[in-house]
Every structure is written in C-alpha cells, then in structure tokens.
C-alpha cells in the first residue's frame, strides 16, 4: 500500500485515505487557444516509466490537494509538497537527483 505524507496536516496517509488526482503541474488552456494546446491539456499525458509528479487529495482527512513525487517503477516516494507551487521545490528535486541522477520530467530536471 502506498503511504504519502500530507504536507498540510502532516499525517502519514494510507492510500485508502487519499484520492489520486492525475498528472501535476498541467498548464490549463481554455477557449480561444490552439487545438494542439487544448488537446495537450485535456488528453496528452506524461506516462513515464520512472520519476513522476502527481496531484493527490487527502480526501478522508483534511480534504486538501497536494503534490507528490514518485517512481512508477519502484513505487518509491521522493516527497510531497504544497499544491500552491507551480513546480517541484528544490529539496524535492535534490531528493530525486540523489536517487535517480539525470532524471527529467517535462521541462523539469
């Protein structure tokens, strides 16, 4: 079972306490944007075999959304951070680099 620490209330949550919310840091495109941008926002997804960034919600707890950095191959968790951030904070990036040197995900590395 996946265990994630909620960055708001500090609780170590079991997966059953959480709702997965899909890919993190999506840039939203609305009416009037290019077809390709709109398609990218709505449908195209990162599906990496390795380092991944996601949104989760502490649904059966404080109810807040947050971000998690995870490995999809080992299920290792590199860290969780606030939903208010538009990119992973440096300490999370460093934690990933320590274990997965040379990683990259979308524009982040």
């Amino acid at each position, binding site marked *: 079972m996946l265990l994630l620490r909620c960055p708001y209330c500090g609780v170590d949550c079991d997966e059953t306490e959480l709702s997965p919310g899909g890919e993190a840091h999506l840039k939203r495109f609305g009416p009037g944007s290019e077809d390709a941008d709109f*398609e990218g926002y709505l449908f195209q997804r990162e599906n990496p075999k390795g380092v991944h960034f996601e949104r989760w919600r502490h649904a059966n707890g404080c109810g807040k959304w947050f971000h998690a950095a995870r490995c999809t191959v080992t299920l290792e968790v590199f860290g969780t951070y606030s939903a208010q951030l538009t990119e992973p904070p440096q300490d999370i990036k460093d934690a990933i680099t320590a274990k997965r040197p040379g990683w990259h995900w979308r524009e982040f590395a």
Partner: protein
Amino acid sequence: MKRYSAFAIAREALRDHMGWTRAWESPEPRAQYDVIIIGAGGHGLATAYHLGKEHGITNVAVIEKGWLGGGNTGRNTTIIRSNYLQDPSAAIYEKARSLYETLSQDLNYNVMFSPRGVIMLAQTEHEVRGYKRTAHANALQGVATEYIGPQKVKELCPIICLDGPRYPVLGGLWQARGGTARHDAVAWGYARACSDMGMHILQKCEVTGVKTQNGKVTGVTTSRGDIGCNKMGIVVAGNSGHLAEMAGFRLPVESVALQALVSEPIKPCMDVVVMANTVHGYMSQSDKGEMVIGGGADGYNNYTQRGSFHHIEETVRALIETFPMISRLKMLRQWGGIVDMTGDRSPIISKTPLEGCFINCGWGTGGFKAIPGSGFAMAELMATGRSPLAAEFGMERFREGRFIDESVAAGVAH
C-alpha cells in the same frame, strides 16, 4: 509445421510422444526485416499473423522483452463480448468475437473458445436504462444481445442472490455468444502460426530505442543488437507511453495496475460469465473449477505489475453480496497487469507522427476480447495505409473531438 489432430495424438501415443516438434522457432535476429512488431502479446502476434495471411508480408519479426504472452494477454480474465455502445466499437469487437468462433480451426490450435454467454447485471435504475439503450444500439448494429429481467438472470445463473441488501438485481444485458477463451493458447496459437509462415519471434529481446532518419523509422536498438525495418508497429499495452517517448511522440494514455484473482477449485456451479459494473466486480468459473474474479483498476500510474490490496477487498466484498455462496471460498492467487487507459476508454489503432511507425494501444482493461479483430485491422492499416475497421480509432480523434465514448460499456475492468 506438423498439424495437430486427433490422429496426431493417437500416433504420438503409440511412440511415446517423441514425435512432437517445437510449436515455434527461436531464431537469431536478422539485420533487417520488412516489418517489426514490438510486443508479442495477443495484439502484436495477431497483427503479424494477419500481415502474413491477408497481405503476404512474412519478412516480419515480433520482438518481445520477456516471453510471449507474458504481458496482459497472459494476465487477463478472458471475457469475450461485443456489446459495446458506439458503432465503431461494435464493429471491431464483433469482428473479433466472430473470428474467435473459428479461431481454433484457423490456427489449428485449441484456444478453448467457450461461448457460454455473458450477463452484465443492471443493479440500479440508471443501469437498467443504460443497458436497454445498449441492447437497442446492438440490435441496430447487428450484434445479438438482449435485455433480460431478473427471473431470466436467476435461471441463467442460479447462484445469484437477486435481492441483495445494497444492490438488488433488476435485470441484465445478455449476450449469448459471448464467453471466454484460454488466454495463453491465443498467444501460443498465433505464435505457432506466425512461426510457420517464416516470421521470427524474438523473445528476451527488449527494444531500448527507436532509430529514425528524416522523420522516418529505420529500425530499433534492442538488448540483442540493432535491427532494421521498413515499417514498425508498437503494440505494447502498458508500455505504450514508454515506447512512444522513444519514438518521439506523446500519447493520450496512462498506465495503471489492474488486478485479478482466482479461488480454490470447486465443483461446477456457474456456466455463464457475470459482470456487476455498479459494484465493480465480475466472475466466471474456469474449466479447472476456480472462480475467476476481477475488479477495478488503481487510480494512479504504475509499472510494477502489482496493484493495491484494498481493491481486492472491495471487489470481493461486493461480489459476496451478489454471490453469497463464495463467502467461504479461499482465494488462491492474485496478480496484476499494467493496462493502458485512454480518455474515452477506446483503443488507438493509428499512424503516428513518425513515418512508417504505427501504434495499437489503449485497449486498457478490455482488449483480450478484441485480439483477432484488432490484429486484422492493424495489419490492414500497416500493409495498405487504410483500414475501415480502424478508421475511427486514429489518435487524432482527441484533437478533433471525435471521441468513441465507451466509459459506460467499459465502466468496469474486463
């Protein structure tokens, strides 16, 4: 290839079974093939088979990182049905189902197709209306299905409890010629037929990169060396995103774990397949007597081929309400497969931005039933550049807003 027959069994019985030959060859890779198919699951092997059978293309390699049929093809719960809602889906799933009817004869390999019938239970008013609508759609599409009442459900499956505490059985969508087949045998049968046409099945050969020149595919790098090709088909289910990244394009696909489990074997008690989509569970009985059970998929990306335990608990908890007799059964084995989910729950059979490279993926939780039809369409697309059956399943449909919404038909994993 030596043909399998009752006579062959009798002959071999008389000579201590020393005359059987290998079902398929394990050759060394050539430097160059006309066509490379990546992934020796059912869909990849069926594609190769139809390239040879209908289009005379036999200089083909099917490249597999593990062993053939070791992906989702060997991990699924083998439900075959074609009662989808939208016309393009009905066409390809029904093509597949009808090919299953004679697949054992066509391949000279017993795939144990068992058209025992599939019931999809309606357990809410919403589902009643949904399945009546599907039955009407199927009638127009020429797919034989029928909406049945609770008494008929009970007749077909006596171990069902109709008035369960939370979700009483209100009726069901019945497809009499749906059923199951032996999943490994489907992969093995196609592999044997492909090998017999001179195709190469290269196992333990992982594709690690895609080679291109001027926007056109020229080959792949693998754990067994570089292999060149004129055309390439990516047919790797849960690994589609990974391969697409190597080929330089993005997909509207995410990979998640889907699990199944089987009970200890018991005497025959159920001779149809029952799916209960509202409670996310389905069950059938294998020839060995095990109850084969499947449930929902995990909600987050995963490549580990194992899923979360609470999904098993949820599935079994729900099924016990509908099938009280299974409450004392011991569960023997549980496993997971990585399924490739698209936004509209329909597959992708498509050209790609890379010239010469085609992709067949997105079958998600329900592609075993589609293997023969998908192979037929994918081979046609690769050989001729166009396939009527595949036409609506191009990956550009997401940009153009032409979704083939099967989130109801495929609401539960199957």
